């Protein structure tokens, strides 16, 4: 089929046109990944005067027998399992509220979206102040007020049971606005006729939500959940700034373990092996998710 005239004329041009972009992809995506894959089988260390050696699967075996990394993996999975549904539900709720056409919608939309505009590092520093330990901490004060004085001040970020939930809370707060905007756009694209028809058929508010809104929002919802899952696996900024993986690995993540390995212990090979595992895992999650919820109206 490639022998058709006209097409064959354009192929070199197309390749040439795409060259800068392809070169970029090659240099900044493919090459680093191939290098990481290669390093993962060596003993490479930053700054080490020892010669480079091939060590086979040793790095991978070490990683999978390291309780720290396994804890990081578990934390990532737990984080995704809690944050993805909660954050999506919250975003959907906010989007539905804003879609009611009430007064001040614009103001609320801006307010809800604002956290997304702030860099995560800034958000983390602000929440560090919110979670300040002792009775003067903002969160402690709030809980004291809500519990009518029954709350004992806690050190959220140093409490093994509360540290990860504390990070989850701020992540949801920061990320929900972005998903809300996407879902809002999806909501506004649903033809009014569908709702009218359903109403004529006697469907109530809840039934219309269940049988009109949700199916119509299918694609945006899948997109939102996929992106949130990937972001959940990439959890790093909050951990680095607020807890440094502590207490006792309660908030460590795969990304944090990688950065620790390469920047505090100079173990480039080990970090590379972690990157490879991380990549395969995210790929797997993405494939499974796509399989479970195939997007409709998508023709490759």
């Amino acid at each position, binding site marked *: 089929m490639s022998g058709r005239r006209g097409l064959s004329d354009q192929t*070199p041009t197309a390749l040439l046109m795409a060259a800068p972009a392809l*070169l970029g992809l090659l240099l900044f995506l493919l090459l680093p990944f191939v290098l990481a894959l290669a390093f993962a089988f060596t003993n490479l260390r930053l700054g080490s005067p020892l010669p480079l050696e091939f060590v086979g699967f040793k790095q991978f075996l070490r990683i999978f027998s390291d309780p720290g990394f396994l804890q990081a993996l578990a934390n990532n999975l737990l984080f995704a399992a809690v944050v993805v549904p909660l954050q999506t539900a919250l975003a959907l709720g906010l989007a539905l509220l804003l879609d009611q056409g009430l007064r001040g919608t614009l103001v609320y939309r801006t307010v809800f979206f604002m956290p997304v505009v702030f860099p995560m590092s800034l958000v983390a520093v602000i929440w560090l102040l919110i979670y300040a330990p002792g009775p003067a901490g903002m969160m402690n004060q709030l809980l004291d007020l809500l519990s009518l004085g029954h709350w004992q001040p806690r050190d959220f970020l140093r409490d093994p049971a509360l540290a990860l939930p504390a990070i989850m809370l701020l992540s949801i707060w920061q990320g929900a606005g972005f998903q809300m905007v996407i879902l809002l756009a999806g909501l506004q694209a649903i033809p009014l006729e569908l709702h009218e028809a359903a109403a004529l058929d006697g469907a109530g508010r809840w039934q219309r939500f269940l049988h009109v809104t949700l199916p119509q929002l299918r694609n945006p919802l899948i997109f939102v959940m996929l992106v949130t899952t990937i972001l959940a696996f990439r959890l790093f900024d909050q951990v680095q700034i607020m807890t440094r993986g502590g207490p006792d690995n309660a908030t460590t993540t795969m990304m944090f373990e990688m950065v620790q390995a390469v920047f*505090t212990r100079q173990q480039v090979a080990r970090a590379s092996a972690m990157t490879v595992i991380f990549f395969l895992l995210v790929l797997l999650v993405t494939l499974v998710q796509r399989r479970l919820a195939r997007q409709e109206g998508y023709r490759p």
Partner: protein
Amino acid sequence: MAIRMLSGPGRPASPAIRALALSLLMTGLCVLGGCSDTADSTDPVLEIWAHAGQARERQTLESQVARFNRSNADLQARLTLIPEGSYNAQVQAAAVAGELPDLLEFDGPFLYAYVWQGRLRPLDDLLPRRLIDDLLPSILQQGRYRERLWSVGTFDSGLGLYADRSRLQAAGIRIPTLEQPWQRDEFTTILDRLAEDDADGQVLDLKLNYAGEWYTYAFSPLLQSAGGDLIDRRTYAHATGVLNGTDSVAALSDVQQWIESGRVDPNIDDAAFTTGRTALAFGGHWNYPRYHQQLGDDLLLLPLPDVGHGSRTGQGSWSWAVTADSAHPEAAARFLAYLLRPREVLAMSEANGAVPATRSAIARSPNYREGGALRLFVEQLESGHAVPRPRTPAYPVITAEFQKAFERIRSGSGVQATLDQAARVIDNEIVDNRGYPWLFSGKSEP
């Protein structure tokens, strides 16, 4: 519109060539941009990197550099301050890129890794003999590796037990000295006796809120007092059998016992001692100004308890070294010698409260001279009670693992199993680096 035009059939290839040329041009610009960074290497400038530290410390160093520059017309010292949080990571990256300055500051126990990597130049032939002789033995201990002196600090640190004199007297507790410190069982009894008159029974502040390097700095002396250690100091080849040996396990079990019996204040607000919640507090020289302001003459500075082989304590702080590739090692040493003048050592000690590094400065320091309020710190450093952190390139891993282990032990994990795990990781690291063989024999080995 434009896209359709370009992709039309039979178009001449010129737009594509233009695109290619553009991308080549961009690459070329990058290369040129990269080159222009290193164009001014001929200037007689002394590059200095230091950690940003607290405001007063920073300002003192900045004014020291300015004073040095005013009195040395032929030489220009240029100071770059790097945030403390990621200091070591940034220096390591710069070292790999071959962009280290002439004079480099780093946290003392990281010295041995830098030396092993061949990044530094020995100091013993650069600094005047009388200057080296004037330094505290602890500074020399920390700065020596493989029989050469590689780094010197302008100050050292002090670790001790702060106490409220009136509460000790009220409970009828004897005041210990460096020669007769509290013994292990005595200390437990003291905690119990103090707890009787305490509202919540928490009478000891271990600064558990500090975390990080504090754990290694403050609690490895207890291991050493018990006869244990972080690593085998004779061979530096393994931690197994030492870090997880009976003595180390006993020492950390004691600490765990203090915590579990409710004697230790978690110090969440960093004010356990100043608000009077505890009568005793582990602490460093940096705690003194605030404690003294609060307790006045009731403030006592005591040695850490002796849990078997005499009282042991920590030492070491930031120190300076000349880099191996420096084009101006003599100039760097001249600046270092300037920082070590009594006047400059005292200025820094006043700014950060640390122990002056030279005996001549100590003699003129109100807090540290004979009879001074913090004299104990000097005595500990001079008499061998202070133990340097392990002098091995494996130190970064040793301290990281010990910190993790302490964190776990503190929250109730089994001491033996936790230390077994830490010792295993440390041993792995040493084996992975083949025991840190010396690879620079031609360059700087004596």
